[in-house]
């Protein structure tokens, strides 16, 4: 069972989907029970969704199926036959393939070259004429196609996703595991691709197991759904029969959520921060953002929606001083603003960048030191302008650790040792505990569990209500719809749409996110 699967000749009968059954699977890592007696049945030709919070065991489960982990107990059955899968190669031989969130594509190779290299058993000397004819014949049987000669690096996320799915079919894999397949797509692209996948399952060509956290996708495309919670089976059912409320309940169990603070009505507040005609470049010289104009009023959350990679990170980097401007100016309270430490302190500008461990903390420094990154050069921590007094530093840390409920063994633990949610809380404690004038937030809840998400959103709303101007960049449209007063859409490095949230809707925003302007 170690040979790679090879593509069938183009004229063969379309192969049939395979069914998979997971029976009483358990897997522990040390004392942590990642999976506890989980059973799932996915019949051939069905579209099954796997729901669960972070850490619920979804990835452990699929890694056991793919042969990255060996389960402690339980077994896998493919089409009713017991199989043993010890590594990804054997999964492939059994006809099981996985589309990962970070695509397994080689950026500098073209689509055709990527398909060829994925085969693994290609000819030593490639006769491109013949191979291309075969690829074309293969694509003719597919409901969608991709440009074969474009290097993957130049493809849009949706095209890469299509290529990944095509690659699985090309390799004759008939059971596909999709890991949050729409996280990098526009709503339009997401619907298109899931619709195509759905079509392939109804045609009986493939079986799909999709990891997701988007209830809308489950209801629109899946046949059935299984929910995991803390490594255990929490429930399952037909997607058409489970309501969103029922699924949420299965996912989070009975953990109480922090109530969202009410939205205070501000009107006629002054402009706190202005982005005026700002352009900036990528490191390879191409334009990242072009002529961005945006005013942030005090007491307002402006949400920036957009599919990732449309210049949002560049904009945040410009605002936090990580990337130089090519043109334009930034104004804080009407004055020219350069993101220096002194100016940030003067205008009370704070930020929660994405990937906080990388962008907002010094990973190897202690929690206490990370919390003091804004205040270590001011009294009471700094004495005589140069001496760092450990006493007040630790006192500040202890106070904020308690207030923001950061779970850490001690104030001296390196921040890298904390979990993602607690790293984000550490940054929140540092950035939000003072008097905030302007807050720049990017994907604050990415990768966090439900409880942390609710708490962090409440904190952001609280800052708004206390009069801070908030810029919220998020790839999660639901987050923007929940928090923002105004929404702006970025597409192709520009702001293509700005509207009061009350005067717009999901479909309009989705259209602008997809780059359609009307």
């Amino acid at each position, binding site marked *: 069972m170690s040979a790679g699967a090879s593509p069938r000749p183009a004229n063969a009968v379309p192969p049939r989907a395979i069914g998979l059954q997971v029976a009483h699977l358990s897997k522990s890592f040390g004392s942590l029970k990642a999976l506890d007696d989980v059973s799932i049945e996915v019949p051939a030709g069905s579209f099954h969704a796997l729901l669960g919070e972070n850490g619920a065991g979804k990835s452990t489960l699929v890694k056991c199926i793919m042969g990255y982990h060996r389960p402690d107990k339980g077994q896998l059955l493919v089409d009713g036959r017991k199989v043993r899968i010890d590594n*990804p190669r054997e999964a492939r031989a059994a006809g099981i393939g996985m589309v990962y969130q*970070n695509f397994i594509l*080689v950026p*500098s*190779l073209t689509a055709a070259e990527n398909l060829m290299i994925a085969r693994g058993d290609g000819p030593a*000397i490639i006769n491109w004429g013949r191979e291309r004819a075969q690829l074309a014949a293969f694509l003719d049987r597919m409901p969608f196609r991709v440009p074969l000669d474009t290097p993957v690096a130049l493809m849009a996320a949706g095209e890469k996703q299509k290529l990944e799915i095509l690659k699985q079919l090309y390799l004759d894999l008939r059971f596909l595991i999709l890991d949050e397949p729409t996280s990098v797509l526009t709503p339009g692209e997401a619907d298109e691709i899931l619709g195509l996948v759905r079509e392939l399952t109804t045609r009986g060509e493939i079986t799909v197991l999709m990891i997701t956290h988007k209830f809308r996708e489950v209801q629109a495309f899946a046949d059935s759904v299984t929910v995991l919670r803390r490594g255990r089976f929490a429930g399952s059912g037909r997607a058409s029969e489970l309501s969103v409320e029922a699924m949420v309940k299965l996912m989070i169990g009975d953990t109480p959520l922090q109530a969202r603070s009410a939205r205070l009505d501000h009107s006629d507040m002054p402009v706190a921060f202005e982005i005026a005609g700002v352009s900036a470049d990528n490191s390879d010289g191409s334009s990242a953002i072009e002529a961005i104009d945006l005013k942030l009023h005090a007491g307002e959350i402006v949400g920036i929606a957009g599919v990732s990679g449309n210049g949002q990170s560049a904009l945040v980097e410009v605002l936090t001083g990580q990337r130089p401007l090519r043109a334009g100016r930034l104004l804080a309270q009407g004055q020219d603003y350069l993101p220096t430490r002194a100016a940030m302190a003067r205008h009370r500008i704070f930020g929660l960048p994405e990937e906080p461990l990388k962008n907002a903390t010094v990973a190897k420094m202690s929690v206490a030191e990370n919390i003091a990154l804004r205040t270590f050069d001011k009294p009471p921590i700094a004495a005589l302008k140069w001496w760092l007094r450990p006493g007040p530093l630790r006192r500040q840390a202890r106070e904020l650790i308690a207030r923001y409920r950061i779970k850490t063994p001690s104030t001296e633990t390196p921040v890298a040792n904390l979990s993602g949610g607690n790293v984000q809380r550490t940054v929140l404690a540092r950035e939000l505990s003072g008097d905030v004038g302007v807050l720049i937030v990017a994907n604050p809840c990415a990768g966090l569990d439900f409880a942390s998400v609710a708490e962090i959103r409440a904190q952001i709303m609280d800052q708004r209500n206390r009069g801070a101007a908030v810029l919220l960049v998020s790839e999660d449209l639901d987050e923007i719809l929940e928090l923002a007063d105004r929404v702006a859409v970025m597409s192709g490095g520009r702001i293509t749409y700005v509207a009061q949230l009350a005067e717009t809707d999901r479909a309009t925003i989705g259209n602008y996110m997809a780059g359609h302007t009307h």
Partner: protein
Amino acid sequence: MDPATSSAILTVFFAMIGGAIRVSTPFLFVSLGECLTERSGRINLGLEGTLVLGAMTAYAISYQSGSPWLGVGAAGIAGLCLGALHATLCRLPKVNDIAVGIALMIFGTGLAFFFGKPYIQPTAPRLSSIPLGWWSDSPQVQSALQINPLFIVGIGLAVLLWWGFRNTRWGLIVRTTGDSEDTARALGIPVGLVRLAATAAGGFLAGVGGAFLSLYYPGSWNEGLSSGQGLMAVALVIFARWNPVRCLYAALLFGAAGALGPSLQAVGITQGYYFFNAAPYILTLLLMIGSAGSKKALRDVPGELMVTR
């Protein structure tokens, strides 16, 4: 223009063409080897040491056996061993390929000096050349077109590598490994093995380049033989943006620059002799400044080539 000046210009011109052909061969072999290694995602700075060790080995074996081609083969194998050593060391956890490269550069040169002492005096049989200038009456043309078979092999190799990167499974595997290690692993490509093969093959080519130095031009073994050509060839790969055919052009350009000093001296211009002799080094500097920082070059860098890993 008087006839003397024009004939002098002609002399310099032909000398530079001849130089481009003669001097470029080691550049070409080392840069093709480095190109192959870097395309697989590793930098081997040790090729300077490989070049010197190759030169010494080739000379010694040619002297002992009487066959210069046996010397070329032995030089290649010496280079292959150094390349394999580099790749093996780099497979150990937390080992930096640049640091290993510098160590092997010193190791290779030191080894060559140690074993090469007895071969500085004797004269070994040298590689013969093919007189491709037979059709011309001009002795300048004839001398410029004395071409060594290794040069022709090098051109063939450049084209073959360029073709192979696109049209063979091995080419795709090397490019995949160099562009994204994670992807390569997910595709079941044995990353370490591919890099071992690419680095060893790169070392082989650099060793052959060294054989050219001691067995053809300048054509003797001494300790100052390479004078940093191996290092310049590594720089040249960046200038050629990891394209084997562009490596060929770049090698010719460097060869011509290297011939500038001697050919000017030959026509009696002695002013600035050392300056013109330094032409290849100055060219290296200028090209590095001009091309390494350019945004276009950045786009062609194999994804796995990072200085900090």
